[in-house]
């Protein structure tokens, strides 16, 4: 089984919102209809987005760190939003695990948004149907696009490559390797939703140098310094012996 997902590297994300704007651009121009905005350039701007970047300050001044945190639908493997939908408009695709809303069936009852612990769904104020990230399902399979571009718009837009895309059920994929080797984790694991999207934590590279690695106890010359070089004109052991 395939489960497509995003892996977001919080170590790399700089909070530039490029994924937000490219997501909006791609999806508002798509066949599924626009994502409405009210007062976009005015007081109280308001609109539908699939993806938002939030910023958190961790720690206490002066030891603080900013974590920029992009959040969209996590395409849970056990999505609580799907069974509650009374119309069947919300569904999870068998073939690739993408959770989608059929905008032609949705009655806009908002029940699924209540059932998503992550707040990943937004009701479109004008179309009055529930919207959420589609993992660019209209793009990743589009054979008219060059192979390299068959990825979600946010992944392509990210200037720091903080967003990886792939099949988390394939152990050799780039995303699975990243989750396994870089400490990838899921959000709110306490609800058993098994989000497919993962996050890679902030991590620092430390190298540990012990005292005895700087001053070698077994230094034969008993003195730090440049080691004597071999004299190049003299024959080496290999030159004078043979066996």
């Amino acid at each position, binding site marked *: 089984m395939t489960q497509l997902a995003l892996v977001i590297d919080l170590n790399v994300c700089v909070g530039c919102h490029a994924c937000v704007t490219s997501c909006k651009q791609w999806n508002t121009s798509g066949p599924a209809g626009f994502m409405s905005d009210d007062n976009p350039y005015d*007081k109280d701007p*308001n609109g539908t987005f699939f993806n938002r970047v939030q910023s958190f300050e961790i720690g206490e001044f002066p030891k603080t760190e900013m974590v920029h945190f992009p959040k969209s639908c996590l395409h849970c493997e056990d999505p609580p939003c799907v*069974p*509650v939908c009374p*119309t069947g408009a919300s569904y999870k695709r068998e073939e690739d695990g993408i959770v989608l809303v059929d905008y032609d069936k949705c009655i806009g009852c908002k029940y699924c948004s*209540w059932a998503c*612990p992550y707040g990943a769904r937004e009701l479109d104020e004008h179309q009055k149907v529930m919207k959420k990230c589609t993992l660019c399902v209209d793009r990743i399979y589009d054979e008219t696009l060059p192979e390299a571009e068959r990825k979600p718009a946010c992944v392509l837009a990210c200037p720091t490559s903080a967003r990886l895309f792939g099949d988390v059920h394939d152990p050799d994929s780039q995303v699975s390797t990243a989750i396994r080797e870089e400490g990838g984790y*899921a959000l709110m694991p306490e609800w058993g939703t098994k989000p497919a999207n993962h996050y890679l934590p902030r991590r620092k590279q430390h190298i540990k140098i012990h005292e005895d690695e700087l001053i070698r106890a077994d230094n034969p010359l008993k003195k730090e310094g440049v080691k004597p070089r071999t004299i190049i004109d003299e024959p080496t052991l290999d030159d004078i012996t043979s066996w």
Partner: protein
Amino acid sequence: MHPAFSVIFLTTLIGAGQGLFLALVTGQSYAAVGLVNVTNPNEFYTYGSIVAILFLIAGLGASFFHLGRPERAWRSAARWRTSWLSREVIVLPIFMSMVFAYGLLHYFNWDPNILGAEQPLQGQLSLFIGIIGAVVCFALFLSTGMIYACMKFLQEWYTPLTVINYTLLGSASGFMLATLHAAIYEPGLTSLYGVWATIITLVALLTRLASLYRNARIKYKSSMQSAIGVRHNNIDQKAMGMMGGSFNTREFFHGASPFWFRSIRWTFLIMTFPVPLAFLWAGLETGIQVFLLLAFISQYLGLIAERWFFFAQANHPQNIYYQAI
């Protein structure tokens, strides 16, 4: 959560309609075994059913205002296998047609004794329909309550008390209404309904207090730490990703001041329980029907406040992500 008036009216109106129907069937069962004597069954049950149906229709009408796309509402019966909302959508019209059939049988006095005429039990067909209707009625209470009680991360709702309170509060208001209805059409039954209304209201007070007690002591499973996966006690949100608000900030926050929030709690506790009981007592003692009307109205208003509080009190885990501008 943000309390939506469409849902508040839906749940309180159908609750009263369901309770009234239960009261009618209770009355008929008492009469069937000869505990009470209904002198004017035709009018009493027919008009009662009409009032119950009007409440149900009003509730159904209110529910449409909750939908973004009401013209597609028929689709919502599709997922009854998994969705309690779908089940409610199916059970509500079944219940309405049961009430309708029940009223119709009484209106036409068409009540054959299907078990045989020599039975002591009379009026068997309508009693049967009434009892099946009562079962459907409880199924409707269950579906309505489970819509909320099945969501495990809305921890305030995730308890059997949710279903119990919906059932008891709906029944209480229905029996209150039945007391008034009996006072007008069948005075002999007034005190029967009055006593039941009192009992149900008192039991509902206990279970509602139990849920308030429980909810005041909830330990939330999700935290800022589990929400973004950072282990640090000091996490301060600096940006929500938007400045003008969004669906997430509108739908999941009640937006009322702490003072208003607390006042609503006191309002519903007073208006749903002691006030209607006092009016009910006054009405039963003096026989003045206006008191019984006031008892129902005050309890109904109390229930609107109760439902508002029920929604506002629920704390959705997604709110963790929305703490700053």
